[in-house]
C-alpha cells in the first residue's frame, strides 16, 4: 500500500482535495498540465460577488498546499486513467500507480473564434470576458488604440445555450461575471454607456441578484433582452451590432466602441480521453457524469475514481472547493475501509 492518491489538475478543486487528503493522512500527488497551480483562478482579477482579489484566494490556497506533504508535478499532463483508478498514464508515456484517482481537471474556456459572426480575433475591439479580466489585472479596460471606450456592449451566452456550436448547457457563472465586469467598467469609466444583451439573467448565488440590481440602479447599466445576431467593423474601428430587443419586439442596430463576449465553460479537452475508461461516463455536453446528482456528485461507478470541481459541470469557486473536500473524504472512506 502506497497510500498514493493522484489528483488530476491543480485548479481550486484539485488544490483543496490535496489539502484535505493530507489532513486525513494520505499522500496526494497533484498532476498539473500548466507550469503552476491555480487553474483558471490565476487569470481572474477580482471575484464576484464580493470583489475579493483573486490573488487573495489563490495565495491562501497555494500556501496551504505548500504546508502539506503533497507532491506537485507541474507541466505534466495525464493522458489516460487506468481501470478502477489503479494508476494513470502521463504525457511522457510513463505511468504512475495509485490507490485512488481524483479527476479535477476542470473546464475549458469556449473559444470565441468559433462564433465567427462576432468577429473575435478578426476585428479590433472585440474581446471576451477572459480578456477583460486580464485587462483589469494590467490596469484597466482599453481599446486597441489605447483609449478608454465610451460605449461598451456585453453579449451573454457566447458558446453556451447555443445548439449551433453544440453547447446546450448554461455555464452559470458568465451572467454574474458579465454583471461584475459591467460594474467594474463603469467604476473605471463613469461616463461610459454600457449595454448588456442577455437571454435570461441567471443569478443563482448569494449576493448575485443584489449585484444585478445594483448594476441597474446604481450603475445605470442597460440590460437588453435579446441576442446579437451579427457584428461588423466600422471604418473608425468601432463595432456595428445588429440585435433584437425581444421585450419590445423590435430590431436594434447600434455602434459601440467595444464588444465583450461573455464566453462560457465547455467540457475540458481531456474528458474524451478519460472517457475511454469504462468507469467514466460523459454527458452529451462532454462534461463527466457523476454517479448521481444527489448523493454521488463526486463519485464515479468505480469506488476508486472520484471527481471534484468543474470537470462535471460549470460551478463557481466556492462550489468547486467544496467538492474538493467532499472528494477527499470519500477517498479516505474507501481506502480506510480497504485497509481494515
Amino acid at each position, binding site marked *: 500500500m502506497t497510500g498514493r492518491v493522484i489528483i488530476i489538475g491543480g485548479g481550486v478543486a484539485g488544490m483543496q482535495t490535496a489539502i484535505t487528503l493530507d489532513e486525513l493522512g494520505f499522500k496526494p500527488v497533484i498532476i498539473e498540465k500548466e507550469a503552476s497551480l491555480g487553474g483558471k483562478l490565476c487569470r481572474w482579477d477580482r471575484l464576484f460577488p464580493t470583489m475579493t482579489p483573486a490573488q487573495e484566494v489563490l495565495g491562501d490556497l497555494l500556501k496551504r498546499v505548500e504546508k502539506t506533504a503533497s507532491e506537485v508535478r507541474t507541466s505534466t499532463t495525464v493522458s489516460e486513467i487506468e481501470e478502477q483508478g489503479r494508476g494513470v498514464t502521463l504525457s511522457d508515456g510513463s505511468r504512475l500507480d495509485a490507490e485512488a484517482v481524483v479527476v479535477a481537471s476542470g473546464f475549458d474556456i469556449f473559444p470565441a473564434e468559433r462564433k*465567427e*459572426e462576432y468577429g473575435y480575433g*478578426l476585428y479590433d475591439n472585440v474581446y471576451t470576458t477572459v480578456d477583460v479580466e486580464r485587462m483589469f489585472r494590467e490596469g484597466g479596460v482599453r481599446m486597441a488604440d489605447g483609449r478608454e471606450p465610451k460605449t461598451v456592449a456585453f453579449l451573454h451566452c457566447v458558446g453556451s445555450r447555443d*445548439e449551433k456550436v453544440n453547447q446546450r448547457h448554461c455555464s452559470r457563472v458568465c451572467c454574474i461575471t458579465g454583471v461584475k465586469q459591467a460594474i467594474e467598467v463603469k467604476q473605471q469609466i463613469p461616463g461610459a454607456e454600457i449595454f448588456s444583451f442577455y437571454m435570461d439573467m441567471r443569478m443563482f448565488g448569494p449576493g448575485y441578484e443584489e449585484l444585478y440590481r445594483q448594476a441597474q440602479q446604481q450603475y445605470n447599466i442597460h440590460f437588453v433582452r435579446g441576442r446579437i445576431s451579427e457584428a*461588423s467593423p466600422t471604418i473608425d474601428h468601432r463595432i*456595428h451590432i445588429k440585435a433584437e430587443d425581444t421585450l419590445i419586439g423590435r430590431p436594434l442596430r447600434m455602434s459601440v466602441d467595444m464588444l465583450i463576449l461573455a464566453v462560457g465553460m465547455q467540457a475540458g479537452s481531456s474528458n474524451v480521453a478519460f472517457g475511454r475508461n469504462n468507469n467514466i461516463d460523459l454527458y452529451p455536453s462532454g462534461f463527466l457524469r457523476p454517479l448521481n446528482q444527489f448523493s454521488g456528485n463526486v463519485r464515479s461507478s468505480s469506488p476508486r475514481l472520484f471527481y471534484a470541481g468543474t470537470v462535471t459541470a460549470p460551478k463557481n469557486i466556492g462550489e468547486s472547493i467544496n467538492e474538493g473536500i467532499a472528494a477527499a473524504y470519500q477517498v479516505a472512506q474507501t481506502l480506510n475501509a480497504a485497509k481494515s
Partner: protein
Amino acid sequence: MEHFRLFVLPFYAGAFFLLITLLCKYIYWFIGLSREQKRLFWRSLPTRATWKSVVEIFNESLLHRKIWRTNPLLGYMHTSFALGWFLLISVGWLETFVYFKGESVPLYVDIFFSYYVHPIFERNFNFSLIKDALLLLILVGVVLALFKRLYSRIMGMKRTTKHMLGDRVALTALWLIFPARLLAESLTSAEVWRFGGYVWTLSENTQLIPPGIGCGSFLTGSLGQWLADFLPARIIEAQHVELTAWWIYSIALGVFFVALPFSRYMHIFTEIPLIFLRNAGLRAAEKESSFDHFQVDACSRCGICIDPCQLQSGAGIQGVQSVYFLRDRRYGRLTDAVADNCLMCGRCQQACPVGIEQNTLRLNSRVKRAYPDSPNRYAYIQGKDLSTGEGKVGYFAGCMTLLTPKILRAMEQIFTAAGEEVWWADKNGGVCCGRPLKLSGEVDAARKMMDFNKNLFRQHGITTLVTSCPICLKVFKEDYALEGIEVLHHSEYLQRLLAEGRLKLRSGSETFTYHDPCELGRGSGIYEAPREVIAALGVLKEPAETREHALCCGSSLANTAIDDEGQRRIGEQVAMALAATGADSIVTACPLCKKGIAREATLPVYDLAEIVARAL
C-alpha cells in the same frame, strides 16, 4: 365464335379498362400542358430527339440499364419483367402471324395461344422453345422478387418502400400471372400427352396429335409430361382443371391491368411519354404544371433514392425521401412534414434511374402550399442601398458570408492584391438574394428581394458579379436574368485571377481535402474551379464520395423541418468522411457548408478564399 371460351373475358375487361384509363390520363395531361410545352413537343417530332427517345426507351424502359448499374439484382428483376414480358408478347405475335400465315384471328387466340393451338413443332422455327425460355427468365425474376421481399422482412430492413393498397393488389396479381401461365400451359400439355389432341389450323384438314407427344417445350412440355404421368387420368381428363388454370391466368392478367393505373406499375407506361416529352425539352418549373404528372407517375418506387439520402443515413429520418414524397404527392396526401423535410441536396436526383426532377417537383409543391405573400411585407427594403465603393466588378457577400466574416476579410485582401476596383453590394448590410425564401416556397416574396438586388446591380453599372456564396450564385444565374452582367462564383473568379497571373501565391506541401457544396457542384456544375485553385496552393486529397456524389453538409437552408440535432449528425457524418482523407485541413467554397462542417470537425475548416488570402 366456336372457339370462344368464357375465361378470356377477365383479360379482355382488364385490358380494355387499362387502355381507356391510360389514354384518358395521358390525353388529359397532355391537354393540360401549356401552349409553349405543346409546341416544343410537336416540334420535336420527328427529329433526332425522337430517335434519342426511342433508344432511351429501349435502354431504360426495357433493359433498365441505369438500375443494373446501381443494383444488379434489382436490375435483373426489372429487366426480366419488362424485357421478358415484352419479348414474350412479341414472340407470341410473331408466332401467331407465322402460324396463321398472316390471316387475322381473334386477339384471344393470340394471347392464349397455347390453349387454342397445341403447338408441337412449328415448321422450321421452334417458337415454343423461345417462349419457354422467356417464361423461365421471368419466373426467375419472380422468385428473386419474392426472395428479396422475404429476406428484407427477415432482416428487418426498413429501406424497402412501403406499399399502397393498389400496389399490393397489382403486385400479387403480377406475381401470380407467370406461375399461372406456367401451370395452364403445362396442364394443356399434359392433356395432349395423355390423350393427344389436334392442331388448330385455318384450313380444313386438322392435324391430329397422337398421345405421347405433348406440346410446349422444355419447360411447359416437360412439366406437362410429368403431370401426365403423375396426375390421375380423371383429373387430366376433367377439362375444368385445365380451364381453371387458364381462368386464373386470365383473372391475374385482368386484375393486374385494372390495378395498374392506381399502383406504382403506372411507371411502366408513363416512362414512355415522359421520355418523349423530356427529350423535347419539357421541364418541371417553379409552379406545378400538367407535365409534372408524367414525372410523378413515372416513379417506379424502386427506392434507389433512399440509400443516398443523408436524412436517412445520417439523421435517421425516414418517410420523407423522394420516393415517399412522390408517392404522397401522387395520391394527394402530401403533408408539410414531408414536403419541407428535405435538404434539396440533389443526391437522390443524381441516383434516380428514371431521371425524375425531384427537387423541382418538391419546390413547386412547396410553392403551392406556401402562404400567400402580403403586399406590405418587405416594403421596408425599398431604397436600402448600403453599397460602397466603385468598380465594374461587384461583390455580393450574401447573408451567410456576413456571418462568416473571415471569408469577407479574405476577399478584401484578394481584391486588393489583384488590384481590382470593387463595388461592394452588401458589405454594410443588404437585401437577401431571395433563394432561401424561394426554397421554402415563398416565390412571390422572394421576387421582391430579387427585383431589388437586380435594380441595384443595374444602377451601379457592374459588368461582373462575384459572390462567395453558391446559394446566391444559383439564384443569380437562374432567376435574375442579368444579361450583360457575368455572374461568377468566387472560385471561378479566383481561378481566373490565377490564370491571368494577377495573383501570386506561395504554394506548399500542405494537404487539403475539398467538400463540394451541393449548390455549387450538383446545383451549378462547378467542380473544377475550386480544385484548380487548391492545386495551386498544395495537395488535394479527395474524399470517398466526391463531385456529383459529394455529401451534403446538412445545414442546407432548404430544409425547414429538420431539427438541430439532425443537422449536427449529418455534419458529423461529413466531417468524418473528410477527416478520413488524412488531409491537414478541410476546404469548402460555401459559407454555410463551412459552418455546418466546422461544428463537428476535428480538422480546421476554411473557405477557399481564406486559404488563398493566407498564401498571398
